[in-house]
């Protein structure tokens, strides 16, 4: 964190990263969207999506990772996830109760079922993913006073 390293790691690590980062994001999206039929859900899927960007940062250096997901975009997604979750809870007031499950519940084990739970999972995964990536970026780009 203090000295000037050559950004990124060796050639083997960079090649494998290039092949697998997209698959990791896809796997994270799968876990988020099937949160109501199999284990996982918003938090676990959000962590996997964030980790794919951190993987990119570890292998190529922070400049490339910031180019793929700039700081402004990640902070926008973070606030958007939180506001989406709160408005989902407030929409329950149309049925009379805070946080009520107001969409029809459907049949079990299908993808479009279980009321507001899939939407809540998506909102949580946005917030957790963007938030975790922002934590890593904030810890990495901190400029020490001794280096300025």
């Amino acid at each position, binding site marked *: 964190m203090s000295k000037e390293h050559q950004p990124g790691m060796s050639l083997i690590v960079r090649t494998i990263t290039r092949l697998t980062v997209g698959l990791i994001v896809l796997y994270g999206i799968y876990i988020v969207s099937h949160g109501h039929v199999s284990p996982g859900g918003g938090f676990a899927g959000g962590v996997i999506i964030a980790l794919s960007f951190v993987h990119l940062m570890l292998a190529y250096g922070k400049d490339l990772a910031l180019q793929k997901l700039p700081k402004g975009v990640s*902070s926008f997604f973070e606030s958007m996830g939180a*506001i989406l979750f709160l408005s989902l809870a407030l929409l329950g007031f149309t049925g009379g109760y805070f*946080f009520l499950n107001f969409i029809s519940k459907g049949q079990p084990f299908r993808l479009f079922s279980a009321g507001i739970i899939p939407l809540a999972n998506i909102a949580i995964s946005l917030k957790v993913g963007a938030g975790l990536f922002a934590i890593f970026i904030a810890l990495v780009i901190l400029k020490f006073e001794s280096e300025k």
Partner: protein
Amino acid sequence: MNPAANIIPLFVIIPLAGAFLTSFIAKRFRCVSDVIGNITTLALVIISLWAIKIFNTHGILVYSVGAWKPPIGIALVLDGLAVFMVVTVNVVAFLISLFAIDYMAKFTSKWKFYTLFLLMLAGMNGVVITGDLFNLFVFLEIAFVASIALVAFGTGKHELEAAFKYAVMGTLGSLFILLGIVFLYSFTSTLNMADMAVILATKGAGKNIIAMTTVLFLMGFGLKAALVPFHAWLPDAHPSAPAPISAMLSGIIIKSLGIYALCRVLINVIGLTAEVQHILLILGTLSMVVGVFLAIGQWDLKRLLAYHSISQIGYVVLGIALGTPLGILGGLFHLFNHSIFKSLLFLNSGALEYATGTRDLKHMGGLMKKMPVTGSTNLIASMSIAGIPPFNGFWSKLIIIIAAVQAGQLWYAFWAVVASVLTLASFTKVMKYAYFGKMGKDLGDIKEVPLTMRISMSIFALLCLCGGILLIPGVLDSFLIPAVMVIKSGITQALIVMGSIG
């Protein structure tokens, strides 16, 4: 469900919505964060004052979140003690957020301050209104983590060290609370507080599990409330935070997260036995005496106020642990009064630091002529905390001492009087060195603080003057007596709550 109970979730929704909106919008427009922050806290004050009226007409209100009936779902309960705490928390938070408009202008990013402040307020409101044990833990953690970030807000050397000590000790306290919740769940297999009290009473818990959970909760909540063996983080954390945050920490957090949660869990869920009462009496008296003895030799103004916080929390615990209705009334009334005058004292020290740039008493002097509003409000607050009639501190201390004498605990009443006399001596020193006497040499040009800070301090002083009104028989029955009844009835409160569901 009573349609009037729809007011209960608003206490958590409004600050959360304010926090998320502030973090979304206010990065682009500078002045929006002030507006959102103050409108949110003003709305909360109005709703909490309305909740007193609703509670007096309808009785206990229970709200089931998401239409799941307790004990399966989470229940939000508004009883006498919850109304009392909600009014205290929100009124003090509004006045402090009014003060912070001008004080935080020195720091670079004000929108971060308001986001964290509103998150902390949502957490504190959530702790007070919830009726579910794990929900209490989650809201406690939200408020605690937000307050760590606020203590370290200035990112200077001392702030970071104090925030680290606060974080480690507070996380240890949270771990003990979680262990206690695990033990209680494994025995009763429910997380709803009222249900758990009923099951513990009928199933007949063995002495071992009650003793272990009581000790774990005493350690955990004692670390949050800064009772005496667990107080070591407070003299470092409270002076290093910016002045509005010191006032929030000392005025509301150690009471809402510490004393209120301790009372709720130990008295309404587990049930208070004679040994635990004795332990609480000893801890309270130790806090009173140790706090005030350590405060006498201090020359840093905010560190002196932090040690006095420890001492006054000892008064509250002493009052509540006496067990008689008069003692509980004294303890709760002192909790309300201490929020008001201690917040005012910290805001005054913040105003002094804003104007002179120093916190050391030896470098100040003769400021009464140049800063009349700050000086007179500081005089009123000092007379309140020392217990001089007719300010509000006098009434609550008198009730606690009379209750201790009536209950036959003369030794504890003696220490309460000694602590009160030493508090008076300590604040006489503060007033003399800061406001009266000759002007300090290297102080430069001193002006009075800006308008919003003066308004906030004056409203606090007005509440200090009129605090005795809460003891008039008509007002007493609607505000303080229901809270006393909740603590006095102990486990039977759970039966009333179970009856009001659905």
